[in-house]
């Protein structure tokens, strides 16, 4: 037990580059595997959280764009959604990485008035930014399709009633369309969030290299499988971690679903059905 505590101190934040630099090579214990793989999970959670949060807002913009009558907004939105939904995420990672590598190695200074940030293009070739951008675009495209479907299935009577009361424009969107859209889209959106989280496991297996052996959960799992020739330990561990986080997502999104449907009778509330119909 005490040796496991030392392992935790050494490797708990190894994926962030904190702690012992050298990965275990011989006499690998279960504890080391569990701790290091868990450490890698930090990256999966980071990618999942940030991509879902920013992707959500961009998806709504895309969905509104796709629903717009004017081709000026509709066509770019449709093309973006088609590009990211029609091609494999794995290839998108490779393509984006090679594209980012070709960018001139320049630094860009962003002057925000009160603070100056210097961004470097080489950051784009690192998974934490480059991979995140691809994931963001990908989840935005998939979610946009979900939100678009939800906007289309809002009962027209609700919109007509709103217009009859003189609610138009921004008010109509914010007070009528927005709540209904979220409510209708939420069960599917929960699935999207789960499968986006699963997709984060792909990043370090595509073009983006793991810098100084700081990778995600699956990266360490395959490291151990290679080193010990025993896949029966690391992969179930990584599966266990993913299942736990999936359950947390279901609980959190389930609570949000209840909140969105709080005006309905308990019997009428749509349940979160975890269908697999909308994954990538």
């Amino acid at each position, binding site marked *: 037990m005490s040796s496991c505590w030392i392992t935790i101190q050494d490797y708990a934040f190894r994926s962030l580059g904190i702690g012992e630099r050298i990965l275990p090579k011989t006499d690998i214990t279960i504890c080391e595997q569990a701790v290091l793989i868990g450490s890698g999970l930090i990256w999966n959670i980071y990618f999942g959280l940030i991509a879902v949060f920013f992707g959500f807002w961009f998806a709504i913009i895309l969905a509104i764009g796709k629903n717009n009558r004017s081709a000026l907004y509709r066509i770019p939105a449709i093309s973006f959604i088609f590009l990211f939904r029609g091609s494999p995420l794995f290839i998108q990672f490779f393509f984006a990485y090679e594209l980012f590598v070709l960018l001139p190695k320049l630094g860009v200074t962003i002057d925000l008035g009160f603070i100056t940030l210097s961004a470097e293009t080489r950051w784009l070739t690192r998974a934490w930014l480059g991979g995140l951008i691809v994931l963001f675009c990908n989840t935005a495209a998939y979610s946009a399709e979900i939100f678009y479907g939800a906007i289309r299935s809002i009962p027209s009577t609700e919109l007509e009633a709103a217009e009859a009361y003189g609610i138009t424009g921004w008010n109509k969107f914010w007070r009528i369309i927005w709540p209904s859209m979220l409510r209708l889209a939420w069960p599917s959106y929960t699935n999207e969030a*789960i499968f986006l989280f699963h997709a984060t496991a792909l990043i370090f297996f595509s073009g983006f290299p793991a810098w100084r052996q700081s990778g995600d959960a699956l990266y360490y799992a395959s490291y151990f499988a290679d080193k010990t020739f025993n896949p029966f330990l690391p992969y179930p561990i990584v599966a266990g971690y*993913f299942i736990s986080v999936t359950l947390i997502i279901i609980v959190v999104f389930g609570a949000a679903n209840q909140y969105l449907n709080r005006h309905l009778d308990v019997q009428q509330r749509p349940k979160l059905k975890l269908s697999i119909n909308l994954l990538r």
Partner: protein
Amino acid sequence: MFDACADPSSLEGTIWLMCYLTTAKHFAFYGSFIVVLVLLFCAAPLSLLFGFVATSGVRSSIWPVRLIAKGYINMVRGVPDVVFFLFVPLALDQLFEFIRHKIICSHVLEPVWRGTDFIVCKAAKLPLSTSDLWVHQLYAFILALIAFAIVFGAFAGNVLSGAMKAVPRAQTETAAAYGFSKKQVFWRILVPQMWVYAIPGLSNLWMILIKATPLLFLLGVEDIVYWARELGGSKTSLYAYPHPDWRVYYFAGLLIFYLVMTWVSGKVLAKLQLKLSHGQATMAGSELQGYSG
């Protein structure tokens, strides 16, 4: 390939490009597209079979069978498919070698797992170290195919069990009232009717399967991703056709290949859906008849 390409260093412009795109390695690259299509057309029926067996298992009256089948079709909800793609081929490979080791080399008493090594006797290796390269490739491909069938079988199991639930209860109850046995209800009522409900889910699954094929790269198969990296990497003047890093163009090509694949599939599946909706008592079916609502 062509006589004109005998001396690549003297070529220029379009002819250079033509010669470049017809080298032996490029034909291997084009061949790998066929590998992807073969995988698609083998994995689709196999996973449908796996899914069908799993769905029948879920409805079984023996509880261990039910439990295993439920666990199997639900596993894909909690665990990323990549984990299975990495795990299944490795585990299967060890399983096969272990069984062969026990049978062929029963005289060897040392354990197979020794510390951090997995050692089986030479005769039990799969494929044998003396066999040709294509045998190794084929073996890797078959392991990959099984991994795809297992993962997508679980997805198909989800779709099919949903479709079976969607068949109106009145149908099965009527059949039971007419004295059909459980088996007869399943084969004569449930199975023929479920396909209409399963088609949207299965079309979706086909799209996902297309988009999962580049994962072959992770399984050690020389697939399109492998060749795109291989051919696209910058080539110095030591090579017959020197060029800078062109991987981005190769991956752009792959991106377009997949976009075309999904676009064509989408069109075909939409047609199929329309055809199957004819005469169905669903909204799509009645719209075809010219009724509204």
